């Protein structure tokens, strides 16, 4: 695939996402679109650190929750007029999430691999229990944001485009990081941290920067979620399933790839929203999600995107091999399957 063609695909995908709420005017389908985009942004941003560096963080809903509470607390205490102006709090939510990510990362990134995973889970529970027990968070009753009185038939649309903006931001950031020296350092850490350290990579600073950077878009998504819902509860913004969902979505699509997490979130989150809306039964989704993931991991251990890239490469190599063979070689029969 030439690089021009590659860009064309991105443009087509963007165009499809941009016209979706215009074509699909059903409010509940638009709502599914908002949630799906929020998860795509979170998965892409999570992957930018965990996918590239190999440090699987299972506490990202800390940033989501911090973003959501930033939006809620400021809009309530500043008596903001309910409306589009509240969207300006989203980047602020992202920044607050980054501010939290720095000390969290400083503690958690001192350990490696599985201990890192477990300590991110522990930190997550500290935040969840804090949100439930502190007074200023409203406890289990949560917080009600200023009530936005937009017409229900197009209520979701502004949120949809803001969420799409966050997805674009997270994707572009992820792509830039991937091509930068910084991204290479992150991937060097994934491949062999000790050797990277030996070669002069400041692993501590690189890891912390990546960790904090990935918190930004997740915090923004949390803030938009809070505004969209109009009401937040600690158990829903600090949600252990969120932590694992973003990780599973990235694995499902392809860990460390650019498109994998986007694709994984697109498929899995829209499927969950659809199933929950259709059958109003979350259990069925849990079963399907679990089963689907186990199937993917057993048969495509590196995710869907990597699976197809590998197959394509192998097919191309087979073509190249047969082309370079003796002239009367049989015509490559697998050319058709390439398209």
């Amino acid at each position, binding site marked *: 695939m030439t690089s021009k063609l590659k860009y064309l695909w991105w443009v087509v995908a963007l165009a499809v996402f941009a016209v979706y709420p215009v074509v699909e005017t059903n409010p509940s389908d638009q709502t599914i679109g908002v949630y799906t985009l929020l998860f795509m942004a979170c998965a892409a941003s999570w992957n930018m650190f965990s996918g590239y560096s*190999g440090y*699987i963080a*299972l506490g990202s809903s800390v940033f989501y929750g911090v973003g959501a509470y930033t939006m809620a607390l400021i809009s309530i205490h500043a008596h903001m007029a309910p409306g589009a102006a509240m969207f300006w709090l989203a980047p602020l939510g992202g920044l607050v999430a980054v501010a939290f990510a720095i000390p969290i990362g400083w*503690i958690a*990134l*001192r*350990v*490696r*691999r*599985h*201990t890192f*995973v*477990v*300590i991110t*889970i*522990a*930190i997550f*529970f*500290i935040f969840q*229990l*804090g949100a*439930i*027990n502190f007074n200023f968070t409203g406890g289990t009753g949560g917080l009600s944001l200023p009530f936005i009185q937009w017409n229900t038939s197009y209520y979701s649309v502004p949120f949809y485009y803001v969420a799409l903006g966050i997805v674009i931001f997270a994707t572009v950031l992820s792509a830039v990081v991937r091509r930068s020296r910084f991204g290479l350092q992150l991937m060097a850490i994934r491949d062999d*941290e*000790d050797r990277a*350290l030996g070669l002069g990579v400041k*692993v*501590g600073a690189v*890891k912390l920067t990546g960790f904090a950077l990935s918190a930004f878009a997740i915090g923004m998504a949390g803030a938009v979620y809070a505004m969209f819902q109009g009401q937040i509860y600690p158990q829903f913004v600090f949600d*252990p399933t969120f932590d*694992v969902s973003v*990780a*599973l979505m990235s*694995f499902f699509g392809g860990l460390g790839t650019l498109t994998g997490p986007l694709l994984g979130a697109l498929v899995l989150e829209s499927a969950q929203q659809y199933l929950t809306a259709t059958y109003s039964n*979350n*259990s*069925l*989704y*849990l*079963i*399907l*999600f*679990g*089963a689907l*993931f*186990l199937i993917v*991991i*057993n048969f495509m*251990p590196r995710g869907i995107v990597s699976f197809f890239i590998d197959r394509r490469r192998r097919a191309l190599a087979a073509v190249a091999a047969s082309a370079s063979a003796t002239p009367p070689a049989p015509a490559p029969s697998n050319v058709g399957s390439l398209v």
Partner: protein
Amino acid sequence: MNSTALLSAAKDGILTGSIYALMATGLTLIFGVMDLINIAQGILVILGAYLSYALQLHWHIDLFLGLLITIPAMFVVGIVVERLFFRRLTGPEKTGMSILITYAVSLLIEGTLNMVFSVNDVQLQAWYVNKSFAIGSVHFGFIYVAGFVLAAVLLSALYFMLYRTRFGVSVRASVADQTSAALVGIDVKRVSTITFGIGVAVTAVGGMIYGATNAFNASSSYDLISRLLTIIVLGGMGSLGGAMLAGVGMVFVGDMVGVIWSPIWSSMSYFIVLAVVLLFRPQGLFGKQSARVA
């Protein structure tokens, strides 16, 4: 603060903590032998509790008698899970992948349990569940004492098996070095499968006691697994003694914080203890130093 509260917290720490220690031992044993983190341990405890519940509901089998059925049943569940998902799992990403795989397994079980038993809380009932006796000013619930005795017996049996039998030697050799163990003729795969089975089988006991002392549904597994992970990391992953000590210590600390300060902070306290301990000892209290700290 009075001495009764202190005594009571110490009692809870030992009695309730021993059950957590038992469940965490299963987890740490699996990690030690196979380098797998079994996130599904939480939901398997709940599955064990629901098995006891179902046996009692449909066949009126006593909770303790039911263990004779649920322990082998959970052992088989463990072996099936290991065979299906972990046999082919190798490479440096093994541990990380195991977290995600077992999480998917636990979602699968959670959804199934929600469908079969609904999401309403249940609690295991029997004539002895709410009975207690007092020594001095400290009250002892029968079920807690029974749980402690069971945990002590099983942990001793486990200890005996690991340190006094031929199979135990194979397990410890596999913990120390899988490749060398295989080279001296130990069937590491078989040892792994059986260890996984044993590690899961203890959830039958843990689940029964947990279910008799707490109202539970499938989502209680999140609370459980977070505690169990805290215990094994705090104790040092792969260390059996560490898991036991951390299990007792965690409940004790939680109760003390509850008495001195407020019960709402008790569950938060051990996550904070964990974070602080890991700052100074990244390998946990009794863990082997495996990876250098950057």
